[in-house]
């Protein structure tokens, strides 16, 4: 009887050893490239948005190599699939940093993905460039937020509707998760600040992937027929947007009557539907594909050549990766090293051109400056920019409209060196 079990244990042991060895071998297979990790979902629910970002990263790395790489070394992209599974994202982040020895990681789309990998980057002291607009209320030493924070998207959009369209009544509709909840909290506070009465604000949340919008659209219609100019501020996420806009169009809510301004709908989302009935509905972003600048034209051209499809669109998170990657590259050149601490010191203040004709500056709070553009949907699925901020807006990590965060400030340069510095108590919380 005994020999059977020893055989089994040997087998198990051998399997475990093989696994360990495989890891050890890859860990020691160092070569002379600078490695860049790409941490996006290529399968599962988020693949729909994130796959494009993986392609953009491959393109950027490719372009950089054509320019001769960095510090005389070629770049190498290491792509992993986090499969829309957030604990897996943490595992993969660890693998990228510890096993593949990447020098920086570009990735994540959802806040939960970022939250789940954050401790890993902190523990292993590596760099994450996060390219998507988010709820703010965060600033971390190892993370660079190249997407918009609420003051770079939501507040200017509301200002535009208030001033240009004379909106007095507001529907804040969102998917029930942290980004819409926080954004709507900020907007609610902001609107009340501007004298909007509580009964003129309607807040509505729906589950992820909600597909039956009949009731909500008709509620919006009802809310909008109270005799005051009404607008919808939509933080509805990804997949739910197509059925939402279809229902809007079919129920005949024209943009002239009740405009919808969205913060999560871009060219990529519109690619899935016929936009004729949606002409005039708005989005607020920091980039639109239709922006007419030489930088953008060449970016689009490179993208189409890289992906081999001239129909593919570009969108705001792609620009964020473009800016983030170039900032990292500039910081590497500036520091003369890919060491995380050196980059963290070097990158603050780095300026790179964005695609809309301005420059993006990395701020001490690890957010960047961005222009805010309001675009109206056109029949061809593109946006027509109807308004933009005159100056670049610096990204604000802590909203001024939430009581607890108004006193906080992030500054990763000496002497403060803190992501949540309390300006009243002059202390750095949470460390």
């Amino acid at each position, binding site marked *: 009887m005994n020999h059977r079990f020893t055989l089994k244990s040997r087998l198990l042991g051998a399997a475990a050893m093989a696994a360990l060895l495989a890891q050890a071998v890859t860990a020691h297979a160092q070569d002379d490239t600078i490695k860049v990790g790409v941490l996006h979902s*290529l399968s599962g629910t988020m693949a729909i948005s994130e796959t494009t970002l993986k392609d953009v990263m491959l393109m950027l790395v490719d372009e950089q190599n054509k320019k001769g790489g960095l510090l005389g070394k070629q770049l190498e992209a290491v792509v992993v699939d986090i499969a829309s599974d957030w604990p897996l994202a943490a595992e993969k982040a660890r693998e990228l940093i510890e096993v593949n020895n990447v020098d920086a990681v570009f990735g994540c789309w959802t806040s939960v993905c970022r939250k*789940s990998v954050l401790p890993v980057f*902190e523990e292993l002291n590596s760099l994450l460039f996060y390219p998507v607009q988010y709820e703010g209320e965060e600033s971390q030493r190892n993370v660079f937020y190249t997407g918009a924070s609420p003051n770079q998207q939501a507040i200017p959009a509301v200002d535009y509707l208030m001033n240009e369209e004379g909106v007095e009544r507001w529907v804040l509709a969102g998917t029930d998760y942290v980004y819409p909840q926080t954004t709507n909290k900020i907007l609610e506070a902001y609107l009340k600040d501007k004298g909007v009465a509580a009964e003129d604000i309607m807040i509505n949340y729906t589950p992820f992937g909600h597909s039956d919008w009949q009731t909500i659209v008709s509620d919006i219609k009802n809310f909008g027929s109270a005799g005051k100019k009404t607008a919808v501020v939509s933080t509805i996420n990804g997949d739910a947007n197509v059925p939402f806009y279809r229902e809007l169009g079919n129920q005949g809510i024209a943009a002239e009557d009740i405009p919808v301004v969205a913060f999560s709908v871009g060219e990529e989302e519109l690619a899935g539907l016929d936009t004729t009935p949606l002409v005039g509905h708005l989005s607020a972003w920091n980039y639109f594909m239709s922006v007419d600048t030489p930088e953008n034209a060449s970016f689009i051209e490179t993208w189409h050549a890289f992906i081999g499809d001239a129909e593919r669109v570009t969108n705001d998170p792609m620009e964020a990766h473009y800016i983030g990657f170039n900032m990292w590259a500039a910081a590497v050149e500036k520091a003369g090293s890919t060491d995380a601490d050196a980059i963290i010191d070097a990158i603050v203040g780095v300026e790179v051109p964005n695609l809309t004709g301005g420059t993006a500056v990395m701020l001490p709070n690890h957010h960047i400056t961005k222009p805010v553009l309001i675009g109206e949907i056109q029949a061809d699925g593109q946006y027509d920019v109807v308004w933009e901020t005159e100056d670049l807006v610096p990204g604000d990590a802590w909203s001024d409209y939430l009581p607890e965060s108004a006193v906080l400030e992030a500054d990763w340069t000496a002497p403060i060196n803190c992501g949540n510095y309390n300006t009243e108590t002059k202390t750095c919380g*949470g460390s």
Partner: protein
Amino acid sequence: MITQRLLNALGGKVLWVAAILLVIAVLVPASNLLLPVGHPLRVPNYMVALLGKYLTYAMLALALDLVWGYVGILSLGHGAFFALGGYAMGMYLMRQIGDRGVYANPNLPDFMVFLNWSELPWYWWGFGNFWFAMLMVMVVPGLLAFVFGWFAFRSRVTGVYLSIITQAMTYALMLSFFRNDMGFGGNNGLTDFKDILGHPVQASATRATLFAVTAIALAAALLVCSAITRSKLGKVMVAVRDAESRTRFIGYRPEYVKLFAFVVSAITAGIAGALYVPQVGIINPGEFAPANSIEVVVWTAIGGRGTLYGPIIGAVLVNYAKTWFTGAYPELWLFALGGLFVAVTLFLPKGIVGTVGDWRTRWRDRRAISAAKIAPSGTDDSSDPPKVVRARSADPAAPLGASKPQPAE
């Protein structure tokens, strides 16, 4: 003789697997902590975290095997118990952050602060206390399993209907936990943990300890499950799986047998979830996703259900494959996983362990036949045959209860 008895009571193979787990529980942390970085035999930090995660998954698969392999309840909602245990642990870890959150609020976790909650909801009370939290790790999943099972099994909801409502249960829980108003951090879940029992969760020593605790817990769970399945009650469980109404006509109450197994299984899953959370650093409603629970079923099926140690092997293998594929061939990952399920159901209906067992039985039978030709049988048969039979009876002869001729019901 006493060891022999113990071996029989707990199941020989199971005891060996448990022993291996205990050895791993010592060796892996020791190698990680004692050997210098770069030593070829050192288990890197990354591997410790990964292996720890696999072992918690293995424990979840083991829990499922107890109800599926032995009582025939195919739960498509076991991820819910795992996640609830994880949330209970997560709540403890959140409370341990104290005033080190970004808003430096001593009473409220960060996500409550920025959603303007003014006080801690009542269901968070007590989670600052480790022992209370550990109690809840078992009580919450156990209670849910008890209430759910009490109604479902007494109403004689069986088979596919039961599977579908367990799926509905985990789906409803997922939607609930996604809601920010529930007070569990919504989609982001609970994260940014700092300490466990005063030790920083990210420190190597803490990780190594957590790994050792996980391996020991898994070994203990394996032994407990083995003891249960080898008791008379274990025999009743298999009887319920194969011919539920027959057991009823000889006086057993299958609903309570099922309820017992379901609750024990849910508690095991809850403990697995609690061990999982500090090792991966996050718990979010995605763990309730029905697809996750189906994946657990697949690990169990691939390993070999009704064997207790098979699911452990299945969980580790499939998750290792997932780690490898999502890194090496991200595009092919779903093809590989999907193909594996199809192949296993078609070609290895008894899973890896069952199939290997079949080969061995066949090989032994052949040897026995040839041996019988040489020597007349019956010299020391007195002790051996029962063991052979037991070993076989632990493997369900047919892949699923449903394939058995069922009594008129």
